[in-house]
């Protein structure tokens, strides 16, 4: 079996079929929607910060897409709880792939990092470091 089936390990399928933290927050500190134009996947990330405006209290995601992008969003939403916004902004694709714990075939990396990119863009817009018009995730 090639890389494809290796991608769909139990953990990925479990998060896909039973997504954690799925839904929208009532009072998110910031929220952002992004698309992967290659497959039409769309993900919304809602982030609630604690009073220090730095620590991530809770993350929820919504949208639909392929197993890789959905599982990645589900895992990331759990992973980020208790971390700081700086931690989020420092994440890169290797961190996401490590988190997923499977080999991601090159053409699917965009699916894997979608949630991370959307959350990061949302955080940067919130901090005023990114112009909403110029985000790569918002179409």
């Amino acid at each position, binding site marked *: 079996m090639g890389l*494809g*089936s290796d991608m*769909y390990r139990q953990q990925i399928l479990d998060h*896909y079929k039973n997504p954690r933290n799925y839904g929208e927050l009532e009072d998110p500190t910031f929220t952002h929607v992004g698309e992967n134009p290659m*497959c*039409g996947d769309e993900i919304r990330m809602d982030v609630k910060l604690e009073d220090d405006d730095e620590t991530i209290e809770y993350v929820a995601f919504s949208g639909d*897409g392929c*197993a*890789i992008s959905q599982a990645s969003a589900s895992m990331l939403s759990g992973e980020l709880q208790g971390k700081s916004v700086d931690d989020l902004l420092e994440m890169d694709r290797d961190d996401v792939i490590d988190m997923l714990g499977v080999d991601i*075939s090159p053409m699917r990396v965009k699916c894997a990092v979608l949630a991370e990119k959307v959350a990061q863009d949302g955080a940067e817009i919130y901090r005023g470091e990114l112009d909403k018009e110029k985000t790569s995730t918002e179409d």
Partner: protein
Amino acid sequence: MSHQNLAVDVEAIRDEFPILEREFDGQQVVYLDNAATTQTPDPVVDAMSDYYRESNANVHRGIHHLSQEASEAYEVAHDRVAEFIGADGREEVVFTKNTTESENLLAYSWGLNELEPGDEVVLTEMEHHASLVTWQQIAKRTGASVEYVRVDEDGRLDMDHARELIGDDTAIVSAVHVSNTLGTINPVAELTELAHEHDALSFIDGAQAVPNQPVDVKEIGADFYAFSGHKMAGPTGIGVLYGKRELLEAMEPYLYGGGMIRKVTFEDSTWGELPWKFEPGTPPIAEAVGLHAAVDWLEEIGMERIRDHEQELARYAYEQLESEGDVEIYGPEPGADRGGLVSFNVEGVHAHDLTSILNDHTVAIRAGDHCTQPLHDKLGVAASARASFYVYNTREEVDKLVAALDDARQLFA
């Protein structure tokens, strides 16, 4: 063609495509992504490498032997393509980079100069982004409006709606000949007639038609017609814009530079003959030689036979997929107005995941919106999987595709 009624000799044809023998993880590739790009047979590869080995030089500017040979080969390729699509000679055949550039050439050269507020550009809901995005943006810049002929439940154009939309304000009707998503073969001659009744022009996107069926631009009556070399057993890097001679003559160049001019002074320039007026700079010479060879290769098999072979495979794939029960197929039922591709979704499996799993069986298909995002919105899906056939594909390959779906079902059940 003497053996027009005989089936295609797929075995013999496959021998000319070493790439179809390639294996990944010990499994032979099943290439069903031909609507994206077709494979290139040996005679086409050989024609291009012979050109580089024996005749390479720049065109139109050398007096020496090699330049003469290269120029001759480049020019004759225009004649051959003209003959292939029924155009009136090389003057009506402009070489571009691909269908997308052909479309942009027309939109920038004619559209930007001629469209005005109040003018209408009539497209269809099944346009590829190549024409949809281009006209949308040119319309924004000129103040023209864009209208879309509806696609009905069966995946066909609603021709009553076309008759309603196309009117005296219509400046151009731009329609895809064969939909790269639905497989629908559209009544482009009828659309062209409607356009002409209202003194509008017609542009036909033939990217999925010229490779797969006989096309005669004069029979269609189209004013402009575009297609790509890489979808018709030819090389990448070359496309065609056919245009009626008098229309091309009246149009401004789209790109400026050397090789296209009659006379240049410090103050002004005048343009050279068709089609060179639209081909400034060093053109894709080896690719033109390759396209010429591809046309020869296709005609030797016969376009009717290629069409019949592909339609037969598409019908078989449609029936096999339909009998699966959990597969939703888009576009018209198999028949005379359906070309050689099938787009579908398996219930509960995202098209991207499906394609990754099929790739484990070395079955190559495409997943995504196939550059028809608004059409997918209308179908109510973000993405679909698409199997598209060419003259070298077989029923056994369709069977492998269908069998591999089970793996996806098991994983996602």
